[in-house]
């Protein structure tokens, strides 16, 4: 698609790396344009938007309501107290909420392949992923981010952690790398639908299922499951491993310490793999024809 973009928008200083960088900048700018358009259209129906924002906030809050009810009956879950679980919940929700806000609509690939509108995206001089991710950009999904942030903020006032600059940086990187890892899951899920158009629900198991899983302490789950989400689908790097270090807890798998800090590297690796999978998916695309 890069070849089709208007010349004036990509001066291109030459060199392969330069072109690649230009393409990325152009992709992001185009994403920004489409997002701005959708935000403007959303704001035309302000009351509707506010209702949906509240609905998103409340739906996200249901899970925490369940956790509160659990803690009305017990003092600890898997050996973790309410503020500790709230910390896991908050980091998982904010990271997931950000990726859902920015990339959540990438899950519509299957529908677009079925109804033939994927072809339209291919004819435009904008990277397909930018168009897909920005299409029907839903600002109401901020509701989940706000809800998660409130729970996270509350947990921070209750936890007895000595907030050194290093730990603050670790917390910030948790949320950002977590959002990147979840974002990769959204895009890989979208790419998967080039092969299996009707299977969009499979990715819910990893995205929504993933964020639900990470709301609870790893000690609650079987070791095989924890191993699976550490080494196969690297969800454990979103919050479990860094959070265990912040909370001064032992890792149930007994993994080396440096892995707690490996989230940025894991997120980068995920992005690279996701890029390859996305390209392969796009190449495998066959129009519905007829």
């Amino acid at each position: 698609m890069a070849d089709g973009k208007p010349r004036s928008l990509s001066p291109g200083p030459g060199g392969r790396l330069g072109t690649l960088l230009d393409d990325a900048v152009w992709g992001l700018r185009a994403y920004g344009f489409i997002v701005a358009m959708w935000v403007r259209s959303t704001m035309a129906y302000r009351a509707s938007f506010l209702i949906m924002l509240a609905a998103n906030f409340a739906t996200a809050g249901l899970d925490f309501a369940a956790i509160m009810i659990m803690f009305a009956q017990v003092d600890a879950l898997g050996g973790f107290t309410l503020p500790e679980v709230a910390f896991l919940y908050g980091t998982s929700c904010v990271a997931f909420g950000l990726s859902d806000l920015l990339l959540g609509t990438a899950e519509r690939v299957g529908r677009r392949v079925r109804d033939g509108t994927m072809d339209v995206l291919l004819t435009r001089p904008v990277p397909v992923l930018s168009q897909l991710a920005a299409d029907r950009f839903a600002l109401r999904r901020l509701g989940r981010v706000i809800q998660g942030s409130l729970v996270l903020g509350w947990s921070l006032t209750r936890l007895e952690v000595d907030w050194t600059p290093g730990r603050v940086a670790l917390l910030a990187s948790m949320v950002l790398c977590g959002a990147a890892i979840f974002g990769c899951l959204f895009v890989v899920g979208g790419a998967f639908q080039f092969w299996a158009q009707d299977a969009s629900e499979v990715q819910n198991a990893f995205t929504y299922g993933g964020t639900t899983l990470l709301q609870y302490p790893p000690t609650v789950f079987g070791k095989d499951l924890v191993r699976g989400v550490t080494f196969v689908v690297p969800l454990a790097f979103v919050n479990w491993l860094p959070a265990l270090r912040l909370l001064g807890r032992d890792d149930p798998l007994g993994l080396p310490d440096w892995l707690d800090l490996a989230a940025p590297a894991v997120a980068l690796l995920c992005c690279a793999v996701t890029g390859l999978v996305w390209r392969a998916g796009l190449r495998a695309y066959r129009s519905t024809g007829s």
Partner: protein
Amino acid sequence: MHLLRLNFAVALSGFRRYATYRVATAAGVFTNTVFGFILAYTFIALWHTHPHLGGYDQSQALTFVWTGQALLAAAALMGGGFQDEFHERIRNGDVAIDLYRPIDLQLWWLASDLGRAAFQLLGRGVVPLAVGALAFDLALPASPRRWLLFLPSVLLAVVVSFALRYLFALCGFWLLDATGLNALSALLSLFFSGMLLPLTVFPGALGEVARLLPWSATLQVPADVLMGTQPGSAGAGLAFQAGWALVLLTAGRLLQTVATRKVVVQGG
């Protein structure tokens, strides 16, 4: 007789319509199963620290989890089914065509939703429950009598769920954009059906009120009927469900009459 045949035909095509998408069904089964595992582990942790929480032992709590995953799609506990489609027809005015068909509007949608539910119970319910039974020690009844009571209970759960969603969808006659209302409907259903946590675990007055609300007829009661933990007897649970089904269907009928008389159909 003719009416019965017609509604049966509608239900059958509802069944076949959902049965067409096999890959989507398999994807749904996979997701239900994954969520079942996540919930099951959290319940094990919860019941480990607090045995007999909510009057269930651990295997009953796990049975509750997997019954919930089995009924999630069939009883449309997260909303959807006919609701979005019906609402869209109200919004764009196509409902006017439905209204001059020589068949009752409510019965038509009920029949099609029952067909959908029948498929989703078989296609999306049986496998997660079977996987749950293989992976965990569940308190599934050995006696066929309980299973025979469970089936009508599931049927009534679907009818109550339908009647609730029908009421929410009818509000579309007055509100041009009912997406907020649909979200509210899903929210109430998820929380008060017992999908997140069994209603018996809810503390104090909240728990008592929640068990009287119609949403408890969509999951809490069928699960209790299956496990034999229904207060009173299974019969009391079925009567509770049938009562709510009758009340809500009547309310839907009344609201429908008001809606079709007073409201100008949109679109054109």
